[in-house]
C-alpha cells in the first residue's frame, strides 16, 4: 500500500535505466525541459500508487476508449504501474455489490487521497433517474464519491460542458460535473473524446508533481488547451495564402488546402490536435480532409452546422483576405456559398482574438 511507482516498476522487472528513460519521455510529452527528468524520477521514487475511481454518467464511453489508445505511456503501464484503477465500470472484474463495496472501501481507506475521474455527466430531471447506479440516481453517487476525493478530473466534453445529451433542448437536464460538485479542484479535459496522450499526460502530471496542472479560466490545462488548432495547423500557410477547398474532393482538397470554407472550426477551437495529433500522432481531422468540428469547445453542438463557415474570426487582418478570396471564388462553387460569403461579409466582426485565458 505504501509502495512507490519506482518500487512497483522495479519489482515488475523494469530496469533503473528504463525507468529514467520513462521519466525523460514523460517530461518530453509534457513539454518540460531535461531538468525536470530528475524531479519526475524523484517524485516517482517516493510516492505510492494513487487510487483512482472512474465513474460513468450519461456518456458514450468514448473517453475510456480513447484512454486505452494511449501510446506513451501505454494504457497497461498506467493501470499496472502508475496508478491504482480500483473502480472503473468499463474494465473492472467485479460487478454489483462487489463493485459497490470498492467505492466505500476506497473512500474510507484513502479519504482525501484518491482521484475521482468522471466520464459523462449527471442528468438532473426525473429526480436524477435518467441515469441509475445501483438503484439510485447517479448524481448522488457522484456527489458522495467526490466528497472525499483529493481532486477531480472531468473527462471529455460530457463531464466538462455537457456535450451531446446537453445539446438543445437538453431533455434530461444533463449537467456538467462542476455544477454539482463543490469545494474540490476540478481539471477539465474536454474533447469528444480528448486525445489519448493528453489524458494520460494530465494524469501523469498530477501524480508526478502532486498538483493539478495550471488551468485557464475555463478550468482546462493550459499546456494542452492554450492555443487554437488553427494557430498550429500545418494547413495554415494555405489559409494565409488564400488557398481554400471549395467543395469536397475538389482539386484543392486533393492538394491539402485550407478547410476554412468547408466549415472548419479550427480557428475557434482550443485543443492540441494540430500539434499532438491523434492515435500516436498518425493524423488529425484536418489532415484527413474534414474540418474540425470544435468538439472540445463548450456547446459546440449548438453553434450551427459543422459545415457553416465561421463568420467572424479576426486576427492579424487575415480574415479580410480569406473572406475576400471567399467572395471571389463563390461564383465558381454556386449560389449557396455566395450567399454565405455575403452574409459573412455583413457579419464580420470580432469574435475572439485572445488566447484561452480571456475567452
Amino acid at each position, binding site marked *: 500500500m505504501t509502495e512507490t511507482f519506482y518500487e*512497483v516498476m522495479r*519489482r*515488475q522487472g523494469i530496469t533503473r535505466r528504463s525507468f529514467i528513460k520513462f521519466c525523460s519521455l514523460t517530461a518530453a510529452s509534457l513539454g518540460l525541459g531535461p531538468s525536470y527528468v530528475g524531479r519526475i524520477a524523484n517524485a516517482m521514487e517516493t510516492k505510492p*500508487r494513487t487510487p483512482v475511481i472512474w465513474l*460513468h454518467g450519461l*456518456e*458514450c464511453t*468514448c473517453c475510456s476508449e480513447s484512454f*486505452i*489508445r494511449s501510446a506513451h505511456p501505454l*494504457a*497497461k503501464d498506467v493501470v499496472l504501474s502508475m*496508478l*491504482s*484503477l*480500483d473502480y*472503473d*465500470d*468499463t*474494465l*473492472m*472484474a*467485479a*460487478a*454489483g455489490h*462487489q*463493485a459497490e*463495496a*470498492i467505492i466505500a472501501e476506497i473512500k474510507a481507506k484513502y479519504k482525501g487521497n484518491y482521484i475521482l475521474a468522471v466520464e459523462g455527466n449527471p*442528468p438532473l430531471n*426525473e429526480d436524477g433517474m*435518467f*441515469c*441509475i*447506479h445501483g*438503484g439510485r440516481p447517479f448524481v448522488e453517487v457522484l456527489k458522495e464519491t467526490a466528497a472525499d476525493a483529493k481532486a477531480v478530473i472531468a473527462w471529455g466534453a460530457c463531464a466538462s460542458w455537457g456535450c*451531446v*445529451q446537453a445539446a438543445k*433542448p*437538453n431533455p*434530461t*437536464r444533463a449537467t456538467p460535473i462542476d455544477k454539482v460538485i463543490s469545494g474540490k479542484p476540478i481539471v477539465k479535459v474536454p474533447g*469528444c*473524446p480528448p486525445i489519448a496522450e493528453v489524458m494520460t499526460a494530465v494524469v501523469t502530471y498530477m501524480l508526478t508533481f502532486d498538483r493539478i496542472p495550471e488551468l485557464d479560466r475555463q478550468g482546462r490545462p493550459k499546456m494542452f488547451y492554450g492555443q487554437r488548432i488553427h494557430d498550429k495547423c500545418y494547413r495554415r500557410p494555405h489559409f494565409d495564402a488564400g488557398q481554400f477547398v471549395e*467543395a*469536397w*474532393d475538389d482539386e484543392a482538397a*486533393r*492538394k491539402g*488546402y485550407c478547410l476554412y470554407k468547408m466549415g472548419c472550426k479550427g480557428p475557434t477551437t482550443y485543443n492540441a490536435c494540430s500539434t499532438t495529433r*491523434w*492515435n*500516436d500522432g498518425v*493524423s488529425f*481531422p484536418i*489532415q*484527413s*480532409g*474534414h474540418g474540425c468540428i470544435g468538439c472540445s469547445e463548450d456547446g459546440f453542438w449548438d453553434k450551427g452546422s459543422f459545415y457553416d463557415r465561421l463568420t467572424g474570426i479576426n486576427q492579424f487582418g487575415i480574415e479580410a483576405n480569406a473572406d475576400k478570396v471567399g467572395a471571389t471564388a463563390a461564383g465558381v462553387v454556386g449560389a*449557396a456559398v455566395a450567399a454565405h460569403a455575403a452574409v459573412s461579409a455583413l457579419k464580420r466582426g470580432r469574435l475572439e482574438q485572445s488566447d484561452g485565458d480571456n475567452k
Partner: protein
Amino acid sequence: MAYETQGFKLDNSGKRVVVDPVCRIEGHLRVEVNLDSSNVIRNAVSTGTMWRGLEVILKGRDPRDAWAFTERICGVCTGTHALTSVRAVEDALAIQIPENANSIRNIMQLTLQVHDHLVHFYHLHALDWVDVVSALSADPKKTSELAQSISNWPLSSPGYFRDLQNRLKKFVESGQLGPFMNGYWGNPAYKLPPEANLMAVAHYLEALDFQKEIVKIHTIFGGKNPHPNWLVGGVPCAINLDGTGAVGAVNMERLNLVKSIIDRSIEFTEQVYIPDLIAIAKFYKGWLYGGGLSSKSVMSYGDIPDKANDYSAGNLLLPRGAIINGDLGKVHDVDLKDPEQIQEFVTHSWYKYPDETKGLHPWDGVTEPNFVLGPNTKGTKTNIQELDESGKYSWIKSPRWRGNAMEVGPLARYIIGYAQKKPEFKEPVEALLKELDAPVQALFSTLGRTAARGLECQWAAHKMSYFFDKLMANLKAGDLSTANVDKWEPATWPKATKGAGFTEAPRGALGHWVKIQDGKIDNYQCVVPTTWNGSPRDPKGQIGAFEASLMDTPLAKADQPLEILRTLHSFDPCLACSTHVMAPDGQEMTKVRVR
C-alpha cells in the same frame, strides 16, 4: 407468479439476486434474477438504466450533421452509427457514392468489427472465463508448451511467461489490485488450468497494446479514433497519388500504413485470438448454458455492400434475414420500411402509448415518458431495491419482428449465414465444431455467441484486405473520386423526403430512420442492437434475448454472479445505444425515440 413463454418456464418465487451495476459493458445495465433452491435461474429481469435523448436533440438540425450526433450514441462501436446515419440521409436524398468511398467505408466498418470484437473478448469478456489469480500458480514452462502447441505466435517462451508472472505476482502482492479488485477469483465456475490462465493474461495485455494499432485505420481516413469523421455523399479524405500536395491527402505512404495494419490485424487474430478462443472453449464445452433465443429467433439486416449503392441482400457480404420458431430451413426477408415487420412496444418500458397492447413502426413511433414503478417494487423511486417486472421496469423499449422477440449480433449473423448455406459462414462454423468435437447444438449457447464473434473477427480482418485490394485496383484504373457533391447543397433537395439506413454493428442489426422537411431533420429514429437484445417483456409476456439467455442457468455461488456476467457479456451489451428518448418537460415527443 409463474408462466410459460417461448419455451421457458418463468417463476419468480425464489430468492431474488440483484446485479447493479453490471460492469465491463458500455453504459448502465441492471439485472435481477430469481433462483430456485438449487441456485438455478428461474426468472430474469433486465433493465436499461440510462437515457440521453439524442433523437429529440436532432430535430430541426442539418441532416448532413446527423452522423456526428448519432456517432456519439456510442464510443465503443464508434463509427457504426455515423455510417448508418449517412446511409439513411443518402437514401432519403438519393445520393450515389463513389466506389472508392464504398471501399473506404467498408474498410472502416470492418476495422471497427475487428477492433470491437478483439477488445470485447480480451478486456470485457475474458475475466468471465479466466481466473487471474490462478495464473500465479502456473508453471511458465508448461505455459510455454501450451502456447506453442496452439500457435506460432512468437511471444511464447518460458522466460516471457515467467517475467509476466513475476510482474503479475508483484502487482498482486502490492495489495492494490486495481481493476482486478473484488473479482470472483477461485469461483468453481472457472475451469481453466493455471497455465491457460497465465497465457490468457499475457494476451489480455498484448491485446491492450495491439488494439490501439488497429484503429489507426480510422485515424488515416477519418482523422481520429474514437469518433472519426464521415461525410454525406462519400468520405472526407481526398486521394492524391501523384501531384503536388499529395502529403495533404491519402497517398501511397498512407495506403501502405493501412495495408500494414490490415496484415497485422489478420496475424493477431489468427495467431492469438482464434487459438485462445479454441483453447478456452475446450475447457468450457461442457458449460453450454445461455442459448436463450438463439435457437429460436434471430435476425440480421446484413452489411458490407460489395458494390457501391446496392443495399439488396445479394450484394451484402454479411447475411441478411430472419429466422423464427427455430426453423433454420426458412430464412425470411427483412424490410426496414415495411410497417408490419419492425414494431416497438412499451408495456414494460418507462414510456406511454395510447394503446399499449399494440406496437408501432419506427416511422409512427410515439415516445411519452412514464417513469412509474410496478406495485410490487421494493424500495423507493430513487432507491430501488427490487424491481417489479409485472409493471414498467426499463428505459429500453421492446422491439419485435412480426411480433417475435429476436436475438441480433455475431451469432445471429452466423446462424443466418449457416442456414443460407453460405460457405464463408458455414465452413468455419463446421470446422470449429469439429475441432471442439461439439455438436451443432453447441452453437446455441453463451460459448457459441463468444465463438461466433471470434470467427467474425477473422472474417472481417480478411475482408479488410479484400476491400483494400479493391480500392487499389480502382485507383490503378484511374478513379480517384471519394465524394459526390451533386446534392451537397440543401437547395438541391426535395421539400420533403424520408430514408432508412442500416448496418450490422458489432453487436447486431442497427437501423436509422430519417424524415427531412425543408432541408432540416423533421424526425430521426434509431432501433439499435442492444434494444433488441436487452428488451424487456412485451404485452404477450415474451421475454427479450438477455432475459431468455439467463434462464435455467445454475450458479456455482449464489452471491457471486459470475455466470450471469459471462452470459450477459457474451452479447457485448451497449446500453448507451439502447435506451430511448423522452421529451424535456415530460410531454409527448411524437415519433422520437431512443438514446
